[in-house]
């Protein structure tokens, strides 16, 4: 709780220290990825379902909002709401086969589904403008107020992130959070204990998809340009790394992971070509030496300090 409040204070004050629009743009990206990674963590970290198709849901969200707002002239709020709903439905649809398919199969099924969806988006040129990408997406505007400056946009995104993270923090402490983790730790035992595992898995897929949809909608209106190439497997890997390095199954893990993996490449620009090598080896090292991620490490350090030997 205290760490969360500290991070929030930092985040609120951050625009005071950011000099230019470029850095503000990085901050925008980090906030959107926090939302995306937090939702992914519901599935991967809490429920233990390893989907490699999550980016496709992010793409569906981005394109839904972009198409509705640009091609049909609907307001931003409607576009974002539709993005959330449509991806939520898509998430539930993916969940249905996921009830029968487990482990590696689920991972490969979602990987293939994600690629099929991405290629379909590229193929539907009349709707999505295909490989050329979708341009001219307007900045978000709500009730006549347009978030035009980088700072205004920053606070809109921050508000969404705070709501999203609070949502997950509350959910974790309810019967749903417990059921998700119980499924992760022992599916049969959870079922026998009276947890409707099928319903809970569908719920986990649906909720994480809604997060992806909202993040996608916000991404489209923040970047103002989207193309199918952006939503490729390498982003899936980045997302996975954010949750793993931050700490899967913790509320703040994806927050820390998303910030770290958005900001680090910028700080490490001078190592250029070596960055990906470092990044790859960091993922490997994390699985070997930091299986619970940074937040897991923090939790065990706190526990040790509180209970001196």
């Amino acid at each position, binding site marked *: 709780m205290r760490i969360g409040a500290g991070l929030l204070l930092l985040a609120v004050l951050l625009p005071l220290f950011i000099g230019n629009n470029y850095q503000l743009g990085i901050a925008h990206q980090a906030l959107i990825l926090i939302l995306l990674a937090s939702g992914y963590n519901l599935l*991967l970290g809490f429920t233990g379902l390893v989907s490699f198709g999550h980016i496709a849901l992010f793409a569906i969200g981005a394109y839904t909002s972009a198409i509705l707002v640009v091609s049909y002239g609907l307001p931003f709020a409607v576009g974002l709401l539709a993005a959330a709903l449509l991806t939520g439905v898509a998430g539930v649809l993916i969940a249905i086969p996921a009830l029968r*398919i487990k482990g590696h199969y689920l991972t490969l*099924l979602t990987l*293939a589904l994600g690629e099929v969806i991405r290629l379909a988006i590229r193929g539907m040129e009349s709707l999505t403008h295909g490989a050329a990408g979708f341009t001219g997406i307007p900045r978000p505007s709500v009730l006549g107020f347009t978030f035009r400056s980088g700072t205004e946009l920053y606070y809109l995104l921050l508000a969404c992130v705070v709501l999203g993270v609070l949502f997950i923090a509350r959910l974790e402490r309810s019967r749903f959070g417990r059921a998700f983790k119980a499924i992760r730790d022992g599916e049969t035992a959870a079922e026998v204990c009276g947890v409707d595992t099928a319903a809970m898995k569908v719920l986990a897929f649906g909720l994480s998809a809604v997060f992806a949809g909202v993040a996608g909608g916000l991404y489209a209106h923040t970047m103002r340009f989207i193309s199918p190439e952006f939503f490729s497997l390498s982003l899936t890997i980045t997302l996975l790394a954010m949750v793993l390095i931050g700490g899967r199954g913790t509320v703040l893990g994806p927050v820390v992971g998303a910030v770290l993996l958005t900001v680090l490449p910028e700080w490490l620009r001078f190592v250029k*070509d070596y960055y*990906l090598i470092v990044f*790859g080896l960091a*993922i*490997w090292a*994390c699985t070997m030496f930091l299986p619970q991620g940074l937040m897991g490490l923090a939790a065990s350090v706190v526990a040790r300090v509180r209970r001196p030997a």
Partner: protein
Amino acid sequence: MLQTLLQVALTGATMGCIYALVALGFTLTIAAAGVVNFAYSEWVTYGAYIGVTLVAVLGLPLWLGLLLTVMLCAVLGYGFQLVVFAPLEGKHFLTTVSATIGVALAMQAAATLIWGPYALTLPTFFGSGSLTIGGVALFPHSLLIVGMTVVLIAAMQLALTRTDIGLRLQAAAQDPVAARLMGIPIRRMRTLAYCLSAALAGLAGFMVAPLFVVTTTMGFGLMLKGFAATIVGGWGSLKGAVLGGLAVGLIEAFGAAYLSSEYKDSIAFAMIVVVLLLRPSGLFPERIAEKF
């Protein structure tokens, strides 16, 4: 009409053999240790790059280049056993998958640093000419791929079912606990599987290189086809991997020729989705005795 049909079938069979080789190596680690290796793509890529280095840079003859490539890749597989698979044995599959993804990323970036961002080429054993028989163009290299795959699969089948070490490998794969009780060194058998798997990847990379060009991402596309072959053929089944590879190659070639070449890359993904939804055990599953 018939000529086109034959031509497409030949293209499909050639690619099918490559996919079969890729899927075979990929399946070996699944069968022997239950490990899905996302760094397999880089084993294939490195096979091609090592081949290019040995042949085009160092000027070794092709056959020697091939032999050395396969051996170096086997060493690579051994290295993976040391730093990835052995330490993570028995962990959740997400852990192993993530570790292999991490190493794959690092290897891909390292390949760009070592060999540069531009595509390289590897010559064939027969030059670049093609024979034309009955209006169908035949690349000798394609025939070599098909022949080599057939011989290799036959040899593997023999080795697995007729030799002592092959039988031990099978026993270790099917029931590690019982095999360990019988005194079969599981760890060494798994090491053997990783080395063999990497050698097959290297061979596939070396053989496919002359058909296309060598790039840092070439292995990734092939690995995705290998996934499809594995799913279509039946998880962890070597026979399934071969038949699945052929099926993916042929369906892809016919789909591209008669439906739409634009969607060629989605065909393999669509096959994964359809097979997993309708028949999760694959089209050619191996019969495993049901355990009580």
